[in-house]
């Protein structure tokens, strides 16, 4: 079981994690605004995650934590 945690209030919605993820685990929210006023990334398919950490390594704001 892998758990991807997006620290939504640190996210600027750039979408680089969505681009980096090979398993389409992440997507940019269409409804939730964070405190900065961005639509942050959110986990849409936790089960598909293989813990490759590509999203976290790509995130320019260090807004992703991964537990396994």
């Amino acid at each position, binding site marked *: 079981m892998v758990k991807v945690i997006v620290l939504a209030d640190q996210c600027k919605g750039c979408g680089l994690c969505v681009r980096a993820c090979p398993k389409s685990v992440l997507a940019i929210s269409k409804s939730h605004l964070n405190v900065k006023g961005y639509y942050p990334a959110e986990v849409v398919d936790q089960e598909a995650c293989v813990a490759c950490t590509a999203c976290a390594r790509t995130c*320019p704001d260090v807004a992703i934590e*991964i537990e396994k």
Partner: protein
Amino acid sequence: MATIFKRTSVLTDVPFHYCPGCGHGIVHRMVAEVIEELGIRNKTAGVAPVGCAVFAYNYFDVDMYEAAHGRAPAVATGYKRVHPENIVFTYQGDGDLASIGTAEIVQAAHRGEKITTIFINNAIYGMTGGQMAPTTLVGQKTTTSPLGRSKEHCGEPIRMAEMLATINGAAYIERTALNSTANIIRTKAAIKKAFETQIAGKGFSMVEVLSPCPTNWGKSPAESMDWIAENMIPYYPLGVMKEA
């Protein structure tokens, strides 16, 4: 459950002020992780530049200096010569290193200063509003080259890694990019090698990182990463330019 990825404590809790999709945050994280992994946190100092990364001193939880524009290698030289047992890095953009600070970086390499430079090349001046830099590609549109950089008028962009690699005092010079996960991992390995070069006392080390500037390029973050692969890497080839 065990945490397999989280923010390193060598970064402070201050949120980065950079634009969405900017490469600075990715490189900040990797520099901080390398400092942690090498166990040099208590004897490392950094020198922040003038440019978008001017507030880098707020983000690294090590001793930090702020240098005058382009003069980070000179400040780092002073620090290293007073504290030769300590580790010092400069973090500079292309306006800082390749334009106003060209003399300082060339002479620091020429003297073989045992310092490490992280050079962020995004082919544009970021903080001042997207003007043409010495690293701007021919044909690239900026606020001061609205029809694209002209080779006849402004020459061709400068390749700093190749130039510094010709200097005997330079011990390790590599160019990497941030356009893919694999290249991000290679960038971290290069940063680690550069710090190890300094720890071994071999001489000057620099990593040039091709980094996106979505705001001033007028592209989305994803398009900017593709632009690096399609336009920057063909002109700025990746790889180790020098390893002593």
